[in-house]
C-alpha cells in the first residue's frame, strides 16, 4: 500500500522558472516530511524537510509547503537551474519511527 504518492512521474520546466513538485500522503500518523534529490548512480541527497508543526520551510531556492488537512505537500524550486535536473523523492515518517516511506519519484528536467 503506497502511503506516499507522487502522481506526476515527470516535470519539464524552463530554466529560471519555478518548478512545483507535489506529494500526497495517506497515513495521518506522518509528522515529518522530507524531499530528496537523486542523480543517476548516486544515493538520494537530502534537500529539505518540514515537521507537522509548520506549514512552510524555506532554504535558499527550495521551499516546502505542508497542508496537513489535505495531507499534501509541495516543493517549490525558484529559480530552476539545469543542475536541478534529477529525480525528486518525497518521503515521510512518523515521530518515533525509524523508517521513511517514499513516493515513486518525479523526474525533473530543466530546459536551458
Amino acid at each position: 500500500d503506497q502511503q506516499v504518492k507522487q502522481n506526476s512521474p515527470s516535470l519539464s520546466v524552463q530554466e529560471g522558472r519555478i518548478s512545483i513538485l507535489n506529494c500526497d500522503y495517506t497515513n495521518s500518523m506522518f509528522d515529518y516530511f522530507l524531499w530528496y534529490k537523486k542523480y543517476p548512480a548516486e544515493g538520494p541527497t537530502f534537500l529539505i524537510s518540514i515537521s507537522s508543526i509548520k506549514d512552510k520551510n524555506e532554504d535558499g531556492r527550495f521551499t516546502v509547503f505542508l497542508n496537513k488537512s489535505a495531507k499534501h505537500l509541495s516543493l517549490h524550486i525558484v529559480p530552476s537551474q539545469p543542475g536541478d535536473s534529477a529525480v525528486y523523492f518525497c518521503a515521510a515518517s512518523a515521530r518515533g519511527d525509524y523508517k521513511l516511506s517514499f513516493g515513486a519519484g518525479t523526474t525533473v528536467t530543466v530546459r536551458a
Partner: protein
Amino acid sequence: AAGVIQSPRHLIKEKRETATLKCYPIPRHDTVYWYQQGPGQDPQFLISFYEKMQSDKGSIPDRFSAQQFSDYHSELNMSSLELGDSALYFCASSQGQGGDSPLHFGNGTRLTVT
C-alpha cells in the same frame, strides 16, 4: 563533509550464492537504515539499527540478516540469492532515533543476481 560509504559499489552473484554489503555511516551518526530499490521502483525500507540494536524491520526476507557493529558500521548479509534480489541497496544514517532527523544516503550497492 564525510558521507555514508557503501561497499562494494557493484556486486554480481549467482543464484543461491551469498552476498555481504557493508555500510559506514557518517561519523557520530548512531542510526543506520537499509533500503532496497528495484528497477523503476521507489526505495523500500528493509531494516534499521540504533546504537547497535535492531530498531525497526520492514519488508526484509528471512534470507537476509543485518547487524550494526561497535564502530557503528553495518553489514547486510543476503543468502540463497534469487534473481528478484537484483536491485540497488542503499544504506542511510542519521543522528539519533525517531522521525525528526534527516537520513543521509550512501551511493548504494548495485547487486545483480544471475
